[in-house]
């Protein structure tokens, strides 16, 4: 259960929010100028990285405002929250396989919890 820091209301339980998928996907300014493939990418294709992910949330059961977040989808850690319109901050990909609880390790799936000898 994430604890999400709404930029307008403060820290709230995840159950108050709705995720809005990838952030910074601009709608084509002039849809008629893009071809079918480009348009289909806008409508259907969203980034789905394992790791650093720029995404949107909306505080559905609170202020109803949208905002952006950077979350590591391999750990669910929220690394940064920023408002709509703000320049997306750069987060250096942090390499910390030890911390990743993503659950598909080499031997037993409990093994990510075990420090390698």
């Amino acid at each position, binding site marked *: 259960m994430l604890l999400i820091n709404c930029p307008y209301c403060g820290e709230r339980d*995840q*159950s108050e929010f709705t995720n809005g998928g990838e952030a910074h996907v601009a709608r084509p300014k002039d849809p008629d100028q893009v071809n079918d493939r480009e348009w289909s990418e806008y*409508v*259907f294709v*969203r980034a789905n990285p394992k790791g650093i992910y720029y995404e949107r949330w909306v505080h559905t059961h609170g202020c109803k405002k949208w905002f952006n977040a950077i979350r590591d989808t391999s750990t669910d850690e929220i690394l940064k929250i920023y408002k709509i319109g703000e320049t997306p901050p750069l987060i250096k990909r942090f390499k910390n396989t030890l911390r990743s609880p*993503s659950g598909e390790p*080499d031997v037993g799936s409990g093994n990510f919890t075990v420090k390698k000898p």
Partner: protein
Amino acid sequence: MKKKYSIFNIVKNAFSNNENWKKMWRNPEPRKFYDIVIVGGGGHGLGTAYYLAKEHGLKNIAVVEKGWLGGGNTGRNTTIIRSNYLWDESAHLYEHSLKLWENLSTELNYNVMFSQRGVLNLAHNEHDIKEIKRRVSANKLNGIDSYWADTKQIKKLVPIMNTENCRYPVLGASYQPRAGTARHDAVAWGYAMRADELGVDIIQNCEVKKIRTKNGKVYGIETTKGIIRAKRVGVVASGHTTVLAETAGIKLPLQSKPLQALVSEPIKPVINTVVMSNAVHAYVSQSDKGELVIGAGTDGYNSFTQRGGYNTIEDTLRAIIELYPIFGKMKMLRQWGGIVDICPDASPIISKCEIEGLYFNCGWGTGGFKATPGSANLFAHTIAKDKPHSINAPFNLERFVSGRLVDEHGAAAVAH
């Protein structure tokens, strides 16, 4: 078939104190080159390798799995199998699979415990009723066993269900008697054993890091065990498919989300039918071991952590005890998540792509276990012939450009 399992063979082994069993599959080191590499050792991947060898007589095949066989969604799903889908394309796909299920234990000589105990999909409002009746009609005309069950029939199948005295009463259901469940792990193991027997190299603990291409053609894969060259690569990595596709420069319309499930403590049988409900979101069946296997809805955010939000579990159990008040005294034994890859139209992709020799089988989302034999069989066909089978032809990648989706969300919009 070399490894013949039977009661005689079991007794024989019993008398040697069970100390002479043979390995179910080898543990080979990867070769430098394969004709075909399948990425992903789930049911779909192992099955694909099996059918490539068995039905297309192909050799020099490897399955590369980053963890352990069946450790992905194959090993963490609620095992519901049915074929009563709305659109013709889907109905043909899942019915193809269901027919294979009906003979799978015999075919593999490994009991996958396919249990045709019937599946009910409940209707809780007028909108559900309309949708379900439409689906039942379409199923019937497609030759699939599908019926409208009224509350009385439901009560007969599942006496413990609370159909009236609840917020959203049960008004009816679709019922497919041939549908049911299977023992998920056995499916992966059975396919693995038989594929191995046909010469397929099954390589575990080997993560594919990158798909290499050259001049628009597949060249091979980079793995944690080194580079493996391959003429054709089939990716069946469920939740991780986009991660792999991206390394070949391909963007797929998939989102990976957690889907959670839980089991209760085991009890003597009380529910002999699989029951699903969309409006009151929960589905349940009881395993042959006695625990209730309960599925939740997907969590609404992308994640690769194989766990989801606690609120989803709470919502699921609210629905469960609303529908089955006798489960108020049951206890949750264990709760887990898988990562499902969801397509915008809730239908899978079994398709070639713009890179020659690269094939994708993905987008099964919350419902691909039931498709395991069918999907594997059709994917093998697609790879072997470099051309889709007529059944999987509609499930191509082009559909997102042209708009010819197979939208299995059903009537997602609500009336009035």
